[in-house]
Each structure stands twice: as C-alpha cells, then as structure tokens.
C-alpha cells in the first residue's frame, strides 16, 4: 500500500505496512477486548513487564483491568488443537507505566505470535518477519539475537548461587567486563571460562560468523543445543537473504521469567532504544497448562512516532482568501480547480498568520490571483 508520508505519520504508515506483511505470510489479525479480568494478571505477574495495572470495577462488581499486555489474553483465549499452529498478529493499545512518564501511558503495540506446534521452520519464519518488520520502518536496521540456553549452560558449569548468577547476567547485559573479571575473581572461576565470557561480551558480529567462533567453546550439551539452534537459524536467514541483518549479542536479555531459548531485540538507526522485542515463551504456556510451544514479538510503534519525520514545513499548499460577497459557485469552482492540480487547500476569509502556506491565493471577480509564493523551504 502506498501511503503518502506528507499525510501520515511514520507509526501510522508502519501499522499498515506491517499488517500487509504479516497477512502475506498467512498470519491473521486477532482483535482483543480492551478490558480483561484483573485475575488473569494477578495469577501471572511474573510474565508482565511492569506490575502496575490500571484497574476499575465493572458494573457487576468484578475487578477489571485495562490490558497491560496482549499475549496473556491471546493465549488464554486460543483453543489449541493437538496438531495446530496458530499464526496471528494484533494491533492493540496497552496500558503500562514507564519510568519516563509519571503515571500510565497508552502504548500502541503491534505484535505477532506463533503458538502451538512450533518447529524450527516456524521459529525461522518468525525471525524473518521480525527482520522484515524492521525493514518496513527503516533501511538501517538490526536484529540482535541471543540464546538463554547458551548463557545458562555456561554459568551452570560452575556452581554459582542464584544471587551470583544474577550478578553475572547483569554484567553480561551491560557488557561490563571489569565487573565480570571482579566476579570471576571472587568466585574462583577458572580462566578458560573467563576467556569465553570475555569473547562473548566483546563479540558483535553477524550470527553466522559468531557461530564459527563459538563452536569451539561449548562446554556442555546445553550450550551445544543452543549453538545448534542458532546455527539452524543462521542457515535459514542466509536462504532468506537476510544474514547481514541478524547479529548475535548475548547482552540482549529479555524478561527471563517469560522467555526461554532464543530472545531477540530490534533496533533502527536514529532511535536510542529497541523498538522490537520478542522470543520463545514456552514457559508461559506451560504455566497456563497448555501443552504447546510459542514464539512471538511486539513492535513498539510509539517509539517511532518521531522517527525521521520528514516534517513538512508547510501546513498547506495553498491558502486561499476569498471575498464573502462572491457567489458560492465562483468560490467552489476555483477551489476545486486548485485541488485538481494536486494541491492541498485551506479556505479562509482573512489571512491567518498561524498557517504556513506555499502559496497565498485570492479569489476575486476576475478569477484567482497569486499574492505570495514561499517555495524556499519547499520539501517536495
């Protein structure tokens, strides 16, 4: 679909482009009620980004919530057959608190989920769609992928307390090598492990090249499994022709209660934070008593609202002044003719100084007169 960037904002265009992309791969739009019973979130607090939930009492006295998350509602409502794979996407408003805004914020979120029989092929397809989603928004984009299994396998090879493990994970997340060295020192971690940690913290390469380096480093089956999975993904991305767009970065750590296996985050140049986030979340399905697997991601469209705004310096192409004494016919015909030339018009009785226009026109008895032209800053 071709939407004019002079009319629509980037996030609005993205909604349509993403929808077109997802539908073209057979994902169906899934519409969810804005409200959900609070109980659902109370039972699954671990899986939420923030624990703050906007609640209200419904007319029948039930405690309801404005949904802070779409995935939970989706999983609750999908009736899974044994051999089925649900491929859906959504475009919904969610309500969350953020540190930057004091209070709740309405966030437009588009996301995609693949639930049920999720094999490697489905996983690769979702990753391809994540990369293509970013490409819909900018041609300078990156998808960073990580695998929880690799890091967990690495840390499991030493007997660390949960507390120490958490400290290691946080240091990896912030690429803090001096902290990692300090932690290794305190815990008596052998040098070979420190070397691996050093490599994975500093390394930032396309997935296929990273795997070549890491293949020597697997210490146990958990790490090997993770590498095998990543290697399959790298092969598939090569076939899609997207191998340059996917990089391995173990600092990508999403909510560990929620995700297992691969996790990923998407970035575009010019926005200082991630705009796409997702991963495998089999644990959530397990907790909700469903025997199946799931992978999905969300795109945070609110973050691209300001991105690369080709801010048109003009409000309107032509500001048209008319004499109220003129006949309607004269005014309407003149305006429609100018619009017919592909220009946007604003009709006014007097010149409005707050309007930025390219041309100032006046309709008189004799026809249309050009009073002023401001093409200096013309964007088009």
């Amino acid at each position, binding site marked *: 679909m071709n939407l004019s960037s002079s009319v629509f904002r980037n996030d609005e265009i993205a909604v349509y482009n993403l929808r077109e992309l997802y539908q073209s791969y057979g994902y169906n739009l899934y519409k969810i009620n804005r409200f959900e019973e609070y109980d659902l979130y109370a039972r699954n607090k671990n899986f939420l980004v923030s624990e703050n939930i906007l609640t209200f009492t419904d007319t029948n006295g039930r405690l309801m919530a404005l949904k802070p998350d779409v995935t939970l509602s989706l999983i609750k409502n999908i009736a899974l057959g044994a051999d089925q794979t649900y491929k859906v996407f959504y475009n919904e408003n969610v309500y969350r608190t953020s540190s930057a805004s004091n209070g709740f914020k309405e966030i437009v979120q588009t996301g995609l989920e693949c639930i049920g029989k999720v094999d490697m092929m489905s996983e690769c397809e979702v990753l391809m769609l994540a990369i293509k989603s970013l490409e819909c928004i900018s041609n*300078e984009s*990156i998808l*960073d992928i990580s695998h929880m299994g690799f890091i967990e396998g690495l840390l499991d090879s030493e007997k660390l307390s949960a507390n120490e493990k958490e400290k290691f994970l946080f240091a990896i997340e*912030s*690429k*803090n*090598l*001096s*902290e990692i060295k300090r932690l290794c020192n305190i815990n008596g971690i052998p040098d070979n492990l420190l070397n691996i940690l050093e490599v994975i913290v*500093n390394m*930032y390469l396309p997935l296929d090249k990273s795997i070549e380096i890491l293949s020597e480093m697997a210490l146990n089956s958990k790490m090997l499994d993770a590498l095998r999975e990543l290697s399959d993904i790298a092969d598939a991305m090569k076939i899609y022709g997207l191998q340059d767009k996917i*990089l391995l*970065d173990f*600092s990508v750590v999403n909510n560990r209660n929620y995700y297992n296996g691969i996790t990923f985050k998407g*970035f575009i*140049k010019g*926005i*200082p*934070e*991630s705009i796409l986030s997702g991963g495998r979340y089999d644990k959530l399905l397990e907790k909700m008593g469903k025997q199946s697997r799931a992978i999905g991601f969300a795109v945070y469209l609110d973050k691209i609202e300001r991105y690369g705004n080709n801010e048109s310096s003009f409000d309107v192409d032509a500001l048209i002044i008319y004499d109220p004494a003129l006949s309607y016919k004269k005014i309407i015909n003149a305006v429609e003719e100018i619009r017919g030339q592909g220009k946007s018009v604003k009709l006014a009785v007097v010149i409005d100084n707050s309007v930025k226009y390219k041309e100032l026109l006046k309709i008189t008895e004799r026809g249309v007169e050009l009073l002023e032209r401001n093409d200096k800053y013309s964007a088009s």
Partner: protein
Amino acid sequence: MKEMISIALPKGRLGEKAYKILADAGVECPAINEESRKLIFENAEKGVRYFWVKPSDVVIYVERGAADIGIAGKDIILEYSPDIYELADLGIGKCRMAVAAKKDFCDKRDTTLRVATKFPNIAKDYYNKQSREIDIIKLNGSIELAPILEMSDVIVDIVETGKTLLENDLEPKQDIVDISARLIANKVSYKFKNKEIRTICEGIEKIIK
C-alpha cells in the same frame, strides 16, 4: 563513511582527566582547550564531538542517545541505573560509597534508621538487602551536617580520604561499594557505530592497563 561519535564529559576535574585519557586513546579535540563560550567542540578529522554536562546528567545524555558514549562515575550509574553499556573502568576518580556516622554512634537496630544522602536509591538498596527499615532524607549537599544536627543517624556518601568526615567528628562505618569513572555507551549507538566505539574502547584499555 566514518561515523561521528558524540561524547559527553562531566564538568570538572574528573572530566578533564577523562578527556586526557580519551585524547591519548586517539580521539583528541584541540578546540576543547581553547577558552570560549562554546558548548560543543568538534574534531571532524577524528570524527568526534565533545560536550560538557553536569556530572549527574551524563547518564541521561547517553541513555537517550544524545551522546553515543560518555564518562560517568559509578556512583551516578548505580543511583540512576540507566539502560546503558558499561564498557571500561578508567581507574580515575577513585573513592568509595560508605555509611558514616558520629564516632560514638552504634546502630543497635532497635529503631528505624534515619539516613541522610544524595544517593537515595543506593542507600535504599543497601539497607533493603539487610532488611533494615530506614527513613531516607534526601539532601543535595553538605550531607555531613545532618548527623551533627541530629537530623539523621547516619549518612550514605562518597568518601575519598575521610578528611572531611574527620574534621566534623564523623567516621566511616561500613563501605558499600568502590567508585571510579566508567566509560559508558548508548546501547543502540554501540550497535550502529560499533567499529568506532570499539576502537575508542581498545585505545582506552591500552592506556589504563
């Protein structure tokens, strides 16, 4: 094309020392030493742009991507916990975060502890881990005054030599964490300007070794 790297430096002595390390690491910007009212200094040839900001604001500039990298004290990083990469310990501006109190003070844990500090998050975190109930008094300066005037039992503050404490009849009681200046980076800049940032990083690592 070489990407321009924006660097936020903390105003003051620490920032000047940090700039010297960066300059030695190969990203000098001679304009910065000239007396002027300019806010931003650029060296197009090296592809760097420097600006001075309030030390506690460096993390904000970097987290929001207005600066790609910056120099910030570990105290500021711990207090604000920004979502950034912490790439290197510059080994300068060394001091420690500590609990201090009047010499004769002894925490008997029988009442809520009144804590005066410029770093409420660090203080809260430290006492939370000990399951200690505290009453935070956030101050912006002259923290030592609080226990002298009996407004607080203890203070949580930066201790360099301990001289200021001593002169006011106070002494450090427990150390919380070691502090020094760190090289931090915006997470997305690190991805899109990886080569440039890694080069600076490696230059710094060679110097501080």
